[in-house]
Structure formats: structure tokens, C-alpha cells
């Protein structure tokens, strides 16, 4: 952007398109961003290029696929020091599915650890692209940028949409603005769009008037008209986000197109967890916050949930663990909410004896063992890439997580791609952390759900002071129930503070107790001497104690710290 003059050197900063604090902190892209630049090509002509920056993480591949539907070509950027990563593969296949022209770019060649030759070789061996056509570049030094822009001009086909045809514009994203309503990010395929025009949503069938049109350069800039081939945004004072769904086609209300553009399949959440406000009074604020977040994030779903232990909250569905983490963090940061989060669960499928099939996204909904014919859980195909030295530990980890070995191939002399099929529930149980730690951070992981498989699953209940804590229940494989139960009660013993009475903590399957610990009663808690009348200091100590107490959840007579509800995730490996 700096190179083409869209931004001055002064305006340029790192990750300029990642405007969320979270994106900058983590160095990742969560939300796709569109930008228009003007490039004066080698032939002396000026070309208008519309780019969409997309996330790379597997959780957000739906953002990638939506963007790809709005494009003619794709830049495949590979890090010269790291080579192809597992998620690169998935994204390349998505682009190929959309018949896009792919321009491979090897980035970061300025790094001392860069090995562009190896990255090129991987492009050929793993993806089947001609490595010799890859452009070697460094965004930092500017090397190769001209070559990329020229290649886009020469190789990516120009948009072919008919300017005179009835309007068809694909909504590939949207966000909600408190003043202007829904802002739809669109790619105009055919016809054109002007300010004041009456438009109709083809699926929603509601009509609106275009209040504002604009493009991103990258700051939103108003324009009078968006023509076939262009990318931009449209605001039409749409107050209800449901009236402007991502994937819908916008057409002219007076001269409608007959068929909409192919839309998107709605991304199906695979990971669920309960979100509860620490302060019961914050329930309404949490609802409003979720409402607002889902305006910009159609893949987030939620419904009210009540828990004996945690009170009123919401059961939320996410695309994956990262998505879940990000939503939690945004709720806490951007909306100032304090939340208790329950351990994530996948979507289980239960066939009951009477033939009825139920989808269970919350362990507490699991029918009694006597009613169940069979249980199935989602399996994924996991692609893991790593330096060859780590194959042993990674295979051991996968095996330990009930993985079935599928394939292993060398993608270069140094790196290996292994493929396993394994339960998604094992992936969301700290798999990624363990993968990273057993490969010193060198492994990359990508997975896709391949279907449901039958498994011997049981519900593990946790009882605190003889009361079942519904928010702590989880569904586990029968063979692991004992170890998992033991680890959880041990962990809870360390997390729940001493009370005035002894607190037994038990893990149970049905009526059977499989593990037990107890927290001894509090015996002594008295502040010492107050030196020279320093009562403020005493008061502050007591306030701190009280604050700690306030942050806990009162369940019956027991106060349970928030982190206890996530504790099942942080227990050590159950060996």
C-alpha cells in the first residue's frame, strides 16, 4: 500500500489492515479487510486493484472462502523461513475450487533464516505449482513488490461483468455501525450501483435505498458509483443485520436480476461452551454484547442457558478454539464484561433406543446411559507439518489422542506432513499447545471435519460438596474417564480455597464415584498486629480478600473461583 501511494510512509504501520487490538497483539488476522489500490503498471497504464486480506487460521477458513468467491485471483504468500504450513494447503485448495489464478509469493526473503529455494521446492512438491514462477519478495525491504503488482495485472483476468446488465453484487462481509446501520462489503459482479438507488436483497427480499457508497483505500472513502468488477461498501440504513445477510446478492429494485449469485453455505459451529457473567446483574449486558458481536460475526451462535452452578448465561457455538478465545476476549475487553467460561465441548450425536437422534452440545443434556443406543462424535482429518526430527513425539501425541494414522509424506528433505484422523474433542483439549510444545513451536496444524464416528463415550460428573456441578460435566471416552476424573478433582482441590467446613470433591460416572479428594476446613485466618495505627493498610488487605471472594461463584455454600470451570482444560497429560 505504501508502495502504490495508497498510504504515505507516515501512515504506514505494521499490520496496517489489522485494526483490532487483538489482531495486533497476537500478530494474526481475524477479520478480512478489503482495500483498493491504483497501480501504474510497466505498460504505463493505471490499473485499479481490489485486494482482500484474509485470515490464515483454520478457524477462519470461512472468511477465506467468502473472499475467494469475490475474486478472480489469489496471492499465495509463503513465509521463506517457515515454508508451507498446514493451513496453506487448505487455503490453496479453496482457491483452486474457485478456479482462481494463483500467484505464489515467497515473502520475508530478507530474514537471515530465509530459505526461498526450499519454499519453492515445497510449492512444487506439495501443491503442484510451478516453483520457478514464484515471486521472491520482502514486504519489509520492498523487494519484489513491483513484480507482484505487475504479475497481478498480467496474469489475473480482468473482471468480465456486463456493465449494462441488471445489478448483481455479492455481499462477502458486513459490519454494524451504530450510526449508519449495516455496512455491507460487496463485490459488484454485473451492472452498477449508485447513491440513492433502490436496491433489493434477493434472498431477504427487502428493499432499501443506497445512502452511502464507498471504497477502502484503506480508509473508507465515499464514491458516487460502484461498477461491475469493483469492490467497496454500501450503507443503506439497514438496522437489522438479518436483512443484510452475508452471501446474499444485491440487485436493483426496479430492474432486478433473475437469479442470485451462488451464495455461501453457513459455517457450522463445531465447538460450544457456556459463557456466564460473573455478576448475575450483567446478564442483559452480556446478551447485548453477544448481539452486537454477532452483527459482525455471523458464525457466532448463541442461545440462553441456565446452570445450577453458574446461573443464567449463554451457550455459544464457535468455529473452533481460536474463534472461541477471541470472542471471549472481545466480550471482556470491548464490553468490559467479566465472564466465567465452561470447558468447550464438541457437538455429539446420540442415537436413543427409540431411534431418535439428538445432537448434544452440552454435556448436561446427555440422556441417561440406559436410553442410549449409540453415541457418535465428530472426527477430523488433521494435517500436521513439522521438521522430520519431531515426527516421533507428534505421532506419539496423536496416538495418545485416539488418532488413526492415515499417511505420512516428506514434503522436503527436512519436513514431513503427517495425516491422522482423530476425534475433534481431543483436538480442542489442549492438543495445539501440546503439539507446539513437543515440536518447539515448529509444527503447524490444519484440520477439517470428516464425519461422525461411533465411540464409547460417558458423561463424567464432578460433585463439589456432594452437589453435581453441571457446568463441570464433560463427555469423555470411557477409557480415559478415570484418569481425567482424577486429574480434575486434584486440580479443583488446588483451586477452591479452604472454607469453614470440609469440602469433598468427587468425579462420578452415573452413580459410581471414580475419584475423590477433599479440601480441609479453614482453621485460621487472622490479621496480625496493626503497626502504629495503620488501619488503611488493614482495610486494603481485607478489601483484597473480599474482592477475591467477589470474583468467585457461590454454589450452595461453596465459593468456586472462575478458573475452576476451565480447569478441565489445563490439567496435565493423563498418563
Amino acid at each position, binding site marked *: 500500500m505504501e508502495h502504490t501511494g495508497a498510504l504515505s510512509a507516515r501512515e504506514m504501520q505494521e499490520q496496517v489492515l489489522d485494526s483490532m487490538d487483538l489482531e495486533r497483539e497476537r500478530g494474526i488476522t481475524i477479520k478480512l479487510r478489503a482495500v483498493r489500490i491504483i497501480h501504474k503498471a510497466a505498460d504505463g497504464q493505471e490499473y485499479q486493484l481490489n485486494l482482500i486480506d484474509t485470515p490464515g487460521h483454520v478457524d477462519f477458513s470461512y472468511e477465506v472462502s467468502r473472499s475467494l468467491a469475490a475474486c478472480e485471483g489469489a496471492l499465495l504468500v509463503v513465509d521463506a523461513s517457515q515454508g508451507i504450513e498446514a493451513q496453506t494447503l487448505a487455503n490453496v485448495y479453496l482457491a483452486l475450487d474457485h478456479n482462481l489464478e494463483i500467484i505464489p509469493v515467497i515473502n520475508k526473503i530478507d530474514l537471515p533464516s530465509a530459505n526461498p529455494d526450499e519454499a519453492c521446492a515445497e510449492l512444487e512438491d506439495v501443491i503442484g505449482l510451478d516453483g520457478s514462477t514464484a515471486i521472491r519478495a520482502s514486504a519489509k525491504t520492498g523487494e519484489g513488490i513491483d513484480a507482484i503488482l505487475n504479475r497481478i495485472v498480467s496474469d489475473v483476468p480482468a473482471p468480465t461483468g456486463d456493465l449494462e446488465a441488471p445489478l448483481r453484487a455479492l455481499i462477502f462481509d458486513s459490519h454494524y455501525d451504530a450510526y449508519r446501520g449495516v455496512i455491507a462489503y460487496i463485490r459488484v459482479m454485473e451492472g452498477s450501483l449508485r447513491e440513492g438507488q433502490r436496491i433489493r436483497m434477493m434472498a431477504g427480499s427487502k428493499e432499501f435505498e443506497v445512502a452511502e457508497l464507498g471504497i477502502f483505500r484503506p480508509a473508507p472513502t465515499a464514491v458516487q458509483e460502484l461498477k461491475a468488477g469493483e469492490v467497496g461498501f454500501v450503507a443503506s440504513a439497514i438496522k437489522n443485520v438479518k436483512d443484510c445477510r452475508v452471501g446474499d446478492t444485491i440487485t436493483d429494485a426496479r430492474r432486478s436480476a433473475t437469479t442470485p449469485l451462488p451464495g455461501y453455505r453457513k459455517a457450522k459451529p463445531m465447538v460450544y461452551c457456556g459463557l456466564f457473567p460473573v455478576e448475575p446483574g450483567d446478564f442483559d449486558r452480556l446478551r447485548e454484547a453477544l448481539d452486537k458481536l454477532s452483527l459482525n460475526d455471523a458464525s457466532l451462535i448463541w442461545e440462553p442457558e441456565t446452570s445450577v452452578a453458574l446461573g443464567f448465561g449463554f451457550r455459544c457455538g464457535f468455529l473452533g478454539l481460536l474463534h472461541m478465545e477471541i470472542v471471549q476476549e472481545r466480550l471482556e475487553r470491548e464490553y468490559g464484561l467479566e465472564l466465567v467460561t465452561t470447558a468447550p465441548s464438541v457437538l455429539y450425536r446420540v442415537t436413543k433406543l427409540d431411534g431418535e437422534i439428538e445432537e448434544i452440545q452440552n454435556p448436561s443434556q446427555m440422556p441417561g446411559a440406559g436410553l442410549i443406543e449409540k453415541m457418535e462424535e465428530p472426527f477430523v482429518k488433521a494435517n500436521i507439518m513439522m521438521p522430520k526430527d519431531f515426527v516421533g513425539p507428534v505421532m506419539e501425541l496423536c496416538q495418545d489422542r485416539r488418532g488413526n494414522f492415515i499417511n505420512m509424506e516428506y514434503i522436503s528433505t527436512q519436513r514431513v506432513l503427517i495425516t491422522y484422523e482423530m476425534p475433534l474433542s481431543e483436538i480442542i483439549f489442549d492438543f495445539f499447545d501440546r503439539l507446539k510444545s513437543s515440536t518447539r513451536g515448529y509444527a503447524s496444524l490444519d484440520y477439517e471435519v470428516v464425519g461422525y464416528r461411533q465411540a464409547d463415550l460417558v458423561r463424567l460428573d464432578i460433585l463439589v460438596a456432594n452437589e453435581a456441578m453441571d457446568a463441570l460435566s464433560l463427555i469423555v471416552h470411557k477409557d480415559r474417564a478415570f484418569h481425567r476424573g482424577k486429574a480434575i478433582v486434584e486440580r479443583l482441590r488446588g483451586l477452591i480455597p*479452604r472454607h*469453614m467446613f470440609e469440602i469433598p470433591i468427587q468425579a462420578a460416572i452415573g452413580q459410581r464415584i471414580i475419584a475423590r479428594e477433599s479440601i480441609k476446613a*479453614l*482453621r*485460621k*485466618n*487472622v*490479621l*496480625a*498486629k*496493626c*503497626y*502504629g*495505627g*495503620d*488501619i*488503611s493498610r*488493614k*482495610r486494603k488487605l*481485607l*478489601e483484597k*480478600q*473480599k474482592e477475591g*471472594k467477589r470474583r468467585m461463584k457461590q454454589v450452595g455454600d461453596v465459593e468456586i473461583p472462575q478458573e475452576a470451570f476451565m480447569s478441565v482444560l489445563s490439567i496435565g497429560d493423563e498418563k
Partner: protein
Amino acid sequence: MSWGLYVHVPFCLGKCAYCDFVSYPFVQAEAGRYLWALRREMELCPATGELPLTAPDTVFIGGGTPTIMPGKCLADLIRDLAARFRWPESAEVTIEANPGTIDRLKLAGLRTAGVNRLSIGMQAAYPQTLATLGRRHTYADVIESVQAARDTGFTNLNLDLIFGVPGQTLDEWRATIALACSLEPEHIAAYSLEIPEGTRLFQLVERSELEPCPEETELEMYQLLRQNLARHGYRQYEISNFARPGHKCWHNLRYWHNGNYLGLGPAAHSHFNGHRWSNHSEIERYVTALDAGEFPLAEDEQLDRRTQMAETMFMGLRLKWGVNLLAFRERFGVNASELYSGEIDRLLRLGLIEIADDHLRLTEVGLPVANIVFAEFL
């Protein structure tokens, strides 16, 4: 209006292993500057606008180790204080002392200057525990100090004790109590050891070189203390304080009653009617401020009524007889039992407090876990 005077002396022989207070080794020149600044503060302090015209009826010279200073310095200081604040002869005037820093000559000087109560930091009796605490004296030094105090006419002595020290056994503690009682002090204060961050003990515990005393043992030690002192004729009147009849510490009672006091010296705290302030704790800043004719103010806080009431509750609950509900109503114009009805109900149900004779107090169950009760009122 009744009030107390506190004077802080920040010098010590050396740092104890459990102490996280600002204290300085005694150096003549440094002490001279401190004494000069303290006298400046005495002159300046009416500028606070809070100081009543009446004289204080309790005086407490604490530290640090006040008696590390030469006898003449101390006696002169006390005379200057008396001339400035004109307390009556009936006032309780306490000085803190550590064994090994007082002899007959020094004590006689203090007596003459008007000191009538001596608080001796015995802390422990057994060498191992004294060493763990980083104390620089022996039990023999304690015997000598008490003897010297009696010889010079002190009839109101306190011994400070600490229990729950790493390595200290229940038997050792039993013997320590007996050894303290055999010296026949009028007053005994016994605190369970706290190990604040930044102290030597804290480091040792962090590095697992010392095992902190288990809560169960600490509780047993506390109950043993209460029983054995009762047997020796000491009545418990506060969580950690025991006295023979007629020998409660009036100065400390003022803190527990959330009363008024003026603190002079580095790190000293003051309180008048909901206004709290404190002095700089570093000598250098304290002296520099006074040198410039400024008040050495570090913190200054006007408490809202709610906080004043909370403090009155949790300080008062430290007393054996508890918070006087009639006095509370008179002071704040509201009934504590209505204001805190929810908290009181919950605590009554848990059996941690009781209400009797217009007093709200800790029960036997509540006493060892008083913090839980205190925190409810914040």
C-alpha cells in the same frame, strides 16, 4: 475530645527476618537529623488544623526500636514532647524496647521523663526460633530487661510474643508461654507470624528452605495460648492481647475503637474523625520535607461515612466484647444491625458472630477466622 499521640522511631539494631517495615540501622548522624526533624514536626503539626486543644491521654513511642537511642536523647525527646503536648500525669505513656537495648540507667531516665509502661519485644524463648526470626537477643536478655524494669519502678510491663514460626513445635510454644508468664508481666500480646513478601523469611519459604507452620498447628497454638494465659490470670480483651485486671493498653484500645490519634515521625499514621493521613516512611524524604518547612505528608484520605463505619466494625470486632452497638448508633446515627443486616444474618447463621448486651462480637468459632468476618463489613 480524647486522642492519643504516637511517635515513631525508625531505628533498629538490624532487620528481623519477618519485618517489612522501613527501618534503619542506628547511626548517630542520621538519628540527629531525625530528632531535629521530629521537633520541627512537633512545631508544625497544629497546621494540620485537626489537632485538638486538649492534651492526649495516651502516648506511645514505638518503632523500630526506640530504646536503641541513647538514654539522654530519648529522655530529652520525651520531655520536649511533654512540654509541647502537655499530657496529664495520669496519661499512659508507653515505650517499646528490645531486650539488650535497655539497662537500669536508661530505664531510670525514661521513668523520670514520665514513661510508665514498657513493652518488651520478647517474641520467643528458644534460640532456634529466635534465630529463625532474626532476633538479636536471648531469653536471658529478656529476664535481665524485666528485672531492670522492675528495679527502676515500672509496674506496667508488656511482653510481645510470636507463634506459628517455622520449626516451632507445640511443646516449645507451651514452654515459651510458661517462660513468659514466669516473668509476671502485666500484659502479654501474642501474634501469629505473618511472612510478608520482601522479607528474608519469605525468600526462605519461597526457596523451600523453610516450611511454614501448618494452619492446624497455628490454631492449636492459639488455643493453647488462650487457655494457659487464662490460667495465669491474664484476660483476653482482644484477638491477640491479654492483660491482668486494670492493665489493658489504652493506647491500642484507641485503635480498636477507631478513635483519634496523631502520629509523628517517619511512616507514622494519624486519624481524626474520618480523616487519615500518614508521613513519608523514608527518613530522607521525611527530613527533607520538614527542612523545607513542609508537612511530610505521604498519604491523605478523607474517608466517606460508609468506610468509617466499616472500619469501626472490623476494628471493634477485634475486641473480646465486640462492637458496642449503642456507641455505634450514637456515633453514626444508624443502627449497625440494620445497616449490615444481610451480613450479620449470614455470619450469625454460620455461627461466627453473636449479639448480646448490645454488643456484636466474634464467637469462639469466629475468633480464629476473624478475617472472614471482617471482610463482610467492607
